């Protein structure tokens, strides 16, 4: 794959059938139209060799522009849809950006002053200019840090394409969808595979409701669908919209896939391959697990599989992968001396598998005892009435912190506060926790809530 970072996606989509398209709420665009067409007006030569900020408002125009910029630009800096505009100037400076691709929805910003601005439009025009020779293109992604200026990690088409070891699409017949935005790592694991593999890609539109997105996925006959466990739990609540889709391949990544969500998806999609992947913006994709069980086999550690090596240091997963990002921009080292990325994800070994315990930074300290909220959520989510849950620490004068849980129930509507049914259900969930967990991990209080906040990254929002 030595030449893949300079590969032309135009040449690849030129070989696709006419049905292979990008589909959003408002438009369906045949990918191969870009073989000798352009979404960038007459400005293709102006972007040659540049460091280009991809700042379109819609996913569709980003999907089009990425095909044109690969092999043309020296660097593509991919701006996530909810990027904080106050960080724009810092991102532009750090990445040496000298041009930006925008669309009609991109808000004007002072940080764009002095950049060559090129408008991207879903109306494909004939490509008149001769294309310059292909150059290697870096794909810069912003990590989803919660505070401060986001870090940028450097990938290329090669590391991104290596990102999926899952079933390969057959030309023309497959329709891929994702609850992620393709401008985040979760979505960028899907985009190059769909484009290179000849699958159509259904994109969500800005502000689109989940039920409407699901209805479009059903209408287009989605065959491969990916999202975080939180996004899947939310989708599973969208009855009847969820019943209208029948994907052959269901993929989860970005958060811990617990047994409850895997079992719920198995019940919903009896014939599908249901896989959960471990991936991070920095480390790339480490592995896919397709046996329907949470965690991963213990023998994945200590050997090199599919070019990925894993080790456990201080209970934390470390990964060395050919799909790993090349570096942080700014020179901060991304890997240790042996080339391993510290993922910050803690694992525990029981039986023949490793199970994810939670984030190193998310530990709750209950009177000196460490608690991973994710471990407790996995137990609560096993209760047959529970759809999803969020465990957090609450300040406590005796133990410093104590564990409390917010719980979303399956089915519609909330149960009346303090009704006998509600009290019985809380008791039953607590009973399950007490039977399974040590005392300090049992929530002191459970609240039933109608929904939990899921961030634009697809991950459950945890208070910092």
């Amino acid at each position, binding site marked *: 794959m030595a030449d893949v970072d300079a590969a032309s996606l135009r040449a690849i989509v030129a070989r696709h059938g006419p049905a292979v398209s990008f589909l959003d709420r408002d438009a369906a665009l045949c990918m191969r139209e870009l073989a000798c067409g352009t979404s960038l007006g007459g400005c293709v030569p102006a972007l040659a060799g540049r460091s280009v900020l991809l700042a379109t408002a819609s996913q569709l125009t980003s999907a089009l522009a990425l095909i044109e910029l690969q092999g043309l630009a020296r660097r593509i800096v991919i701006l996530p849809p909810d990027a904080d505009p106050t960080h724009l100037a810092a991102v532009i400076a750090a990445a040496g950006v000298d041009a930006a691709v925008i669309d009609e929805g991109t808000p004007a910003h002072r940080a764009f002053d002095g950049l060559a601005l090129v408008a991207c439009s879903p109306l494909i025009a004939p490509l008149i200019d001769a294309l310059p020779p292909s150059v290697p293109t870096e794909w810069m992604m912003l990590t989803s840090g919660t505070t401060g200026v986001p870090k940028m990690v450097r990938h290329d088409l090669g590391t991104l394409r290596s990102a999926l070891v899952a079933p390969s699409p057959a030309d023309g017949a497959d329709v891929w969808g994702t609850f992620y935005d393709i401008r985040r790592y979760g979505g960028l694991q899907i985009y190059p595979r769909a484009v290179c593999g000849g699958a159509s890609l259904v994109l969500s539109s800005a502000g689109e409701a989940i039920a409407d997105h699901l209805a479009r996925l059903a209408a287009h006959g989605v065959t491969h669908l990916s999202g975080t466990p939180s996004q899947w739990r939310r989708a599973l609540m969208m009855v009847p919209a969820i019943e209208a889709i029948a994907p052959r391949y269901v993929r989860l990544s970005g958060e811990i896939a617990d047994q409850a969500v895997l079992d719920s998806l198995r019940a919903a999609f009896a014939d599908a391959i249901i896989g959960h992947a471990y991936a991070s913006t920095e480390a790339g994709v480490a592995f896919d697990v397709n046996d329907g069980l949470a965690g991963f086999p213990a023998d994945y550690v200590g050997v090199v599989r599919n070019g990925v090596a894993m080790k456990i240091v201080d209970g934390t997963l470390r990964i060395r992968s050919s799909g790993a990002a090349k570096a942080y921009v700014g020179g901060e080292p991304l890997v240790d001396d042996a080339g391993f990325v510290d993922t910050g994800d803690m694992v525990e070994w029981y039986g023949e598998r490793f199970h994810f315990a939670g984030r190193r930074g998310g530990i709750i300290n209950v*009177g000196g005892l460490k608690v991973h909220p994710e471990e407790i959520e996995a137990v609560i989510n096993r209760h047959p009435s529970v759809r999803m849950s969020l465990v957090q620490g609450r300040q*406590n*004068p*005796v*133990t410093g912190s*104590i564990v409390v849980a917010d719980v979303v129930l399956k089915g519609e509507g909330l149960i009346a506060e303090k009704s006998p049914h509600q009290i019985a259900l809380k008791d039953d969930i607590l009973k399950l926790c*007490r039977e399974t967990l040590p*005392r300090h991990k049992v929530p*002191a*209080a459970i609240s039933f809530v109608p929904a939990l906040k899921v961030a634009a990254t697809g991950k459950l929002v945890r208070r910092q």
Partner: protein
Amino acid sequence: MSIKLTIMEQMEQIAREHGKILAPLKEDLVLADCGLDSLGFAVLVARLEDRLGVDPFSSAEEAVFPVTLGEFVKVYEHGRR
């Protein structure tokens, strides 16, 4: 239900959940001898915050250290005013 009754009910409930034997709940019962350990008290304070809407220990300007059950109840009765 009075604050005192709420507190006593919760202490009994938590003792049951934690498999502890509670001493007879009287005004002059020394909390350290009541049968709940520190985790039991931590859960008690959290549950009372949900039921009474206040955690008088975290919100007090001065640290308060009740020794007996009667003093513990008073802290909550003051906290609610």
